[in-house]
């Protein structure tokens, strides 16, 4: 091993989200990585920090009508509509038949009432296969007018407080970018007991077929993901990082190590990779190798050393209120 390789190997990429310890700061985004098994043959499972499973609800859901996907410039729209078998079947089959893997497994919970979130979390978190819980309070494809729990700081606080009582495991709350002040929602989630925040879920969007004059998604509206939303996501992480002390899982259009670094520098402790897995499932492991090299070349010993560095020295700057009118 050459000297520089040895230095790279010594770089510490492990991170903690509450009690959840990850060997690598990379999660696979909910809904983009199935149960993990769909992709395990094409990726190196030993180089993945964690997999966030597809969101599950109390009752089975058929999901939205087709078409559910539209390719758009630098990204895609999806409107899956939380198709899932419901928590009973999910625990009995999907989870029980799971192949053990070296990555950490994060269960994702969705719901339509505060009680549903608490009920599903309690049942899912009770299982030893689940290492942590992500609360998807921000799916734009099921609620009327895209109005989700994460659009309302007070409602977010209520859900998180109730769910917090049901488990000791790490609780990650996934925020929506479809709000005026994401920092306010983040603060409520932190006060209510969240261990970490996932920033961001998809951005609401729409595409229209000019031949048929109809919306191109069966659900009319969808959620935009991929590089198209990356600058929106980086800003959201930057703002949330100033507002809270708990760790952030940054996501939105990460395809390369450079993209991931932007999120760490904006204040993310870990990142999540979703849509990029549809390009090539080996992208997450390339990002891990890229992080190791980037830190090694700069003589840095751990990923934690760069978290939030873009926030340094700018406290309070660039706020609209501060501008002269």
């Amino acid at each position, binding site marked *: 091993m050459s000297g520089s390789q040895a230095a790279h190997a010594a770089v510490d990429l492990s991170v903690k989200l509450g009690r959840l310890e990850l060997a690598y700061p990379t999660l696979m985004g909910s*809904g983009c990585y199935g149960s993990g098994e769909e992709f395990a043959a*094409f990726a190196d499972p030993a180089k993945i920090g964690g997999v966030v499973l597809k969101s599950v609800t109390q009752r089975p*859901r058929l999901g939205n009508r087709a078409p559910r*996907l539209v390719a758009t410039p630098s990204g895609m729209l999806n409107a899956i509509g939380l*198709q899932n078998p419901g928590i009973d079947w999910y625990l009995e*089959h999907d989870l029980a038949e799971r192949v053990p893997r070296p990555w950490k497994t994060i269960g994702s919970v969705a719901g339509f009432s505060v009680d549903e979130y608490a009920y599903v979390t309690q049942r899912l978190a009770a299982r030893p296969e689940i290492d942590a819980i992500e609360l998807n309070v921000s799916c734009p494809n099921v609620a009327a007018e895209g109005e989700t729990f994460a659009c309302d700081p007070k409602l977010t606080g209520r859900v998180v407080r109730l769910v917090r009582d049901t488990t000791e495991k790490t609780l990650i709350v996934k925020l929506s970018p479809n709000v005026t002040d994401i920092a306010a929602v983040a603060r409520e989630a932190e006060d209510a007991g969240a261990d970490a925040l996932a920033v961001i879920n998809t951005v609401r969007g729409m595409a229209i077929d000019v031949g048929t004059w109809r919306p191109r998604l069966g659900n009319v509206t969808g959620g935009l993901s991929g590089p198209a939303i990356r600058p929106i996501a980086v800003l959201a992480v930057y703002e949330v990082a100033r507002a809270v002390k708990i760790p952030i899982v940054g996501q939105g259009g990460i*395809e390369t190590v450079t993209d991931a670094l932007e999120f760490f520098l904006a204040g993310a402790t870990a990142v999540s990779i979703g*849509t990029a897995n549809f*390009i090539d499932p080996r992208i997450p492991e390339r990002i891990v190798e890229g992080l190791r090299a980037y830190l090694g070349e700069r003589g840095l010993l751990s990923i934690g050393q760069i978290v939030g560095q873009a926030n340094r020295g700018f406290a309070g700057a660039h706020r609209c209120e501060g501008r002269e009118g």
Partner: protein
Amino acid sequence: MLTNQMPAAVHATTVLDRTEPAPGIVLLGFYAPELAAVTRPGQFLMAIPPGGERTATALGIYEAQDRRVAVLFSVCGPRTRELAGLRAGDRLEVTAPLGNGFDLSGSPRDVAVVAGGIGIASLLLPAQALIASSARVRLYYGARSAALLVERDRFAAEGCEIHCATDDGSYGRRGFVSGLLAGAEPRPDLVLACGPTPMLRATAAACSALGVPAQLSLEETFACGVGGCWGCVVPIDRNSAQAPRFPGPDKGGSDTVNARVCKEGPVFWAHELRW
């Protein structure tokens, strides 16, 4: 449908040949010995974009023989344009073979293979397999105009009888291929079809009128192509052997369930679709 037995893998291949059988339609052959050996009729691949941007492109496997695999596609957007730019010697990675292919197990003796436009790309392998088992194979092939009826000589050379239709009447009968199929004499024992959704619906209707079972290879937008995102669904009969195991929905007592075109399909029995 025959379920996929060979696990899919990422194959690193080298482009061997590239031709344009018609303007905007590309035939790309590449060296992939292992893939050529395991591909079954009706399966597809995901081409990993050489530039590393955009999501992977799902393409039906056109040929798989003697260490060479080929895809036949029309250039209809940035992703296919990028693939169309590949030349002999270029490298291309593909994830394959994916999906469940055509079920040719019932020893059909007289099969109609129905293609709408570039849907022809998924039909050479089943036609070859059927001819190898001494079945009669008639190709019913529709396209917008004569120039787009690509590869029909190839199907003839394989031993298919060819019946064509064009929208503008520039070759064969004027009109849709489903109309041509409706007049098939004698009636085939089985229909295999691939093409755009309206053409498949019309084919399904013609087959149900003829009383002939049909297997349709569906066209749908894919993201992952491997069953991980539930983005590519079609409603099917809950009792179908292809229905994903799934409990009943909440309300409505529905007897349909959403199956993934990339995982449970892309080939489905027409009578089991609830679209």
